[in-house]
């Protein structure tokens, strides 16, 4: 086993071009679990954790470009969390302080777990990703990137360089159910992002289908009913209809973390509470 510590994205891509079977390592918080479980054996390891470019973020045309190596702790920093509170809230629910210091956004996306906590938020916000190899740079939407349960669209030789997230005006909420009060894998999660300028509510849900997705029917319904001027008077009927639409769009399974029935029920509760919270505050 050998470890190559790349110092730049170009160097990393060159190493991968030569050795496409190398294992990419960022924070190691998913990878080492697989290694310890014996489901992943290490030959050559390419370490991305010391590439300064991957830890940077920049603003461009009302979008933030987040380096793939940004950690959860970084995401909760007020400078960043101001742009997308729901992403910061999701980051805060992840693991323990140690995991939030080590774990990265890129790692969460590459792992592509149905329970990955940043994914419903990024899906709700239509984030896109820059993938880079020694020969090509391409941009894919997050929904194109995540192709199934723990499956992604990375080609051999490619790494995630950055994630591009649009900035939306308006309140945001992320809620996650787990059977412990911290450090727990989500049983259900939900992100609600208001887009005041486009007058749209965006909803992403996690852990209730093979791939986190947007509840589009519910979005259309509620964006239409929402009072975009004074943000008041959402009737109970509307709230219930909305949360039912969200729940109906899910296809949860039974597993040892929760039953399908519970997940469907819980996502409904989360949708209702998230909506009540955003409609309680100042919408602009």
């Amino acid at each position, binding site marked *: 086993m050998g470890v190559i510590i790349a110092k730049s994205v170009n160097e990393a891509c060159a190493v991968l071009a030569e050795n496409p079977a190398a294992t990419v390592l960022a924070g190691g918080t998913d990878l080492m679990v697989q290694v310890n*479980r014996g489901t992943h054996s290490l030959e050559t390891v390419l370490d991305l954790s010391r590439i300064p470019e991957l830890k940077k973020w920049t603003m461009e045309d009302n979008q933030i470009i987040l380096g793939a190596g940004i950690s959860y702790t970084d995401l909760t920093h007020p400078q960043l969390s101001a742009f997308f509170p729901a992403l910061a*809230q999701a980051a805060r629910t992840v693991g323990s302080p140690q995991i939030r210091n080590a774990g990265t956004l890129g790692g969460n996306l590459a792992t592509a777990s149905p329970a990955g906590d940043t994914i419903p938020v990024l899906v709700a916000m239509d984030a896109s990703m820059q993938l880079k190899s020694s020969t090509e740079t391409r941009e894919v939407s997050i929904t194109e990137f995540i192709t199934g349960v723990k499956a992604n669209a990375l080609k051999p030789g490619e790494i995630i360089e950055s994630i591009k997230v649009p900035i939306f005006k308006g309140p945001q*909420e992320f809620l*996650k159910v787990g059977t412990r*009060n911290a450090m727990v894998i989500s049983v259900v999660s939900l992100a609600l992002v208001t887009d005041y300028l486009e007058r749209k509510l965006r909803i992403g849900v996690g852990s209730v289908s093979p791939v986190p997705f947007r509840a589009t029917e519910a979005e259309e319904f509620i964006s239409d009913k929402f009072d975009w001027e004074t943000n008041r008077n959402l009737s109970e009927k509307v709230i219930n209809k909305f949360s039912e639409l969200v729940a109906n769009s899910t296809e949860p399974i039974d597993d040892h973390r929760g*039953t399908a*029935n519970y997940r469907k029920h*819980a996502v409904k*509760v*989360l949708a209702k509470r998230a909506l009540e919270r955003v409609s309680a505050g100042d919408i602009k």
Partner: protein
Amino acid sequence: MSRLQTVDTATKGSRIGESAIRPDGVPKVKGEFVFSNDLRHPDMIWGGTLRSPHPSARIVSINTTPALKMTGVYAVLTSEDLDGMPLYGLEHPDQPVLADGVVRFQGEPVAIVAADHPDNVRLALEAIDVEYELIEPLSDSKLAQENEAIHPDGNLFREININYGNSQEEGEITVEGTYEVGMQDQAPLGTESGMAVPSEDGGIDLFVSTQWLHADRDQVAACLNLPPEKVRLTLAGVGGAFGAREDISLHIHLCLLAMRTGKPIKMSYSRTESFHGHVHRHPAQMWYRHHAKSDGTLIRIEARLLLDGGAYASTSSAVLANATCFAAGPYRVPNVEIYGAVVRTNNPPCGAMRGFGCVQVCFAHEAQMDKLAVELGMDPVELRVKNALEPGDQIITGQTITGTAPVAEVIETCAQHSSSVGPASQQMELPGGAGRTADPKHIVRGEAIAVGFKNLMFSEGFDDFSTASCQLLDGVATITSACAEVGQGFVTLAQQIVREILGVEEVILAPASTASVGSAGSTSASRQTWMSGGAVKSACDAVRIKLLSRIAESHDLDVESLVIVDGGIASLSSEFSISLKEATSDLVEAEEVYRHVPTFPLDENGQGNAHVSFVFSAHRAVVDVDQELGLVKVVELITSQDVGRVLNPLQLQGQLEGGAAQGLGLAVMEEINVVDGRILNPSFTDYLLPTALDMPPVEIAALIEQPEPNAPFGAKGVGEPPAISSTAAIASAVRNATGLDLHRVPIRPTDIVFPERNDND
């Protein structure tokens, strides 16, 4: 008098009653303490275990040839290679060292491998080809007794009937309930690990983390076909135990491989392997009917208990004895009919865990007391106090309580303690915590109290003893005891006892080993402070008498006039004094064996003086519940405990906090999910232990100090009670908050959200 006071200040913090500092505390905090997993030997090789993936199967064939041919592989052993006793077990040998033709639980060891590197161990294990013929597993304990036997010893480990009193009288008020407890794991942070080193005399040295060196030694020696003195066990640093290390795990395997290869060999379980490789807390199904007069006086209890022992016996029969003897709770009940059974299934084996049979029944009897209080329209605290056992009362086995029993005191002090929590002010403090799910509109608060009790030490006529020796030389005391320090703090107490009696400052604890001293018994049953503490005290008392006699003789003094003070020996009747260092320039030593009062077996009606002493505790829990999502946050835990006498306040607090955390885990999250004999969550990803956000501070309302007769220093064991009544109190508080009849722990979100349907069953 003034001299005595100087002694007190000079040795402050180190004697009985003071918060002496753990000798292993600083090294543990600094990461310098050597746990069993840190053992190294320059020539060592590595061992590993091939385990059955199936809960029930016949082994058709095992082909080890490909594995044996691999590079780095020294040995591959199966049951065919055993020439000692092929079975082991703590109470009764019924568990194969290596599966012989049949596997009875998922994870049962089938073959063991020795190789030069852990990677080669893994590859060799993968290369062993085992052909299994699957058998439908017996996974429902309710069917075990009528099912075809899955072991030559049958499917019933033990059944106990307790018949006390003779009235079949119906109460004016009766309440009935069925209760269930899931399978909890001890989850010690250190996984099973150890090292075996073959010795020149044809014997073996085994360094291992365990709770009872001598019981291990005897089982290992029998299985190796060696005389016990050729098998020497030394305690390696223990990373927690809680019952999980009372049974053999890798001990025999390590020794077999070391003997075969002639090399030092190390083994260390992964976390997943650990979940499969040690026993768990018995899942229980319990039916109860309580009868009372309309004034609340209990007149009769009927109960039927069924414990799932899993595939092998372990300590099942003793666990059942506890479950039945303590089934009624710490109450005066004139008439009792209890039937209890513990059965064999193809589920993971169950055995010792903190609270040992009393945890399960406490959950049930306390739920019954709450139900009764509702039926009676009576305050639950008043109902409990009214029926509380007192010294001189009999428990349901007909045994009279001759020691202390401050039951009403623990209940009342716990109930009266003022609560210090207000409503949660931050999202993080509400149910759901970091997940930000809570909506204060949907949060309900509940509060409840529960009481529990348990026996101290081994029961039912077991010859329970502990051995210790004390050597005093040049003013330094050395204590030798095989007591396993598993984190409970015996090492601290042993030093405190020596200082108290011999007045020395420096106390060395020799390594705990079967080679240097007789058995100390098990570090379980809350017994080591009493038993090994008693042995150390006896040895020190003997040394003290020998020393003072020697000084009296050589200086022609009256021995009665001599006292140990201020690091020296002084005469109360003359000016004579001598420093301890000088007085012990010649060795003074003594070895003592300490035994508690004898106990007796239970008769066919479950009657008899089976227990030594009883300990009581109460917990009061305040919980917030998100009813819509079924999430719980325990916001406050208050406790009172019967302790006899406080020997080390800080360590006592540690036991009260840690035990309550374990009880909280069982109440709301800790469960090994077993379906058709398979564990679904053998990792800390999904076996959830409470985090700092789940565990509130533990408020100690009162430590009831009524010295226990016959107990060294009057102290009772304190380790288990905190894990007994805490679960019951939390579950009851959740019932109180939600108004639901929650009859199962752990309480799952679905139990609250869909109370009408059994979504998980």
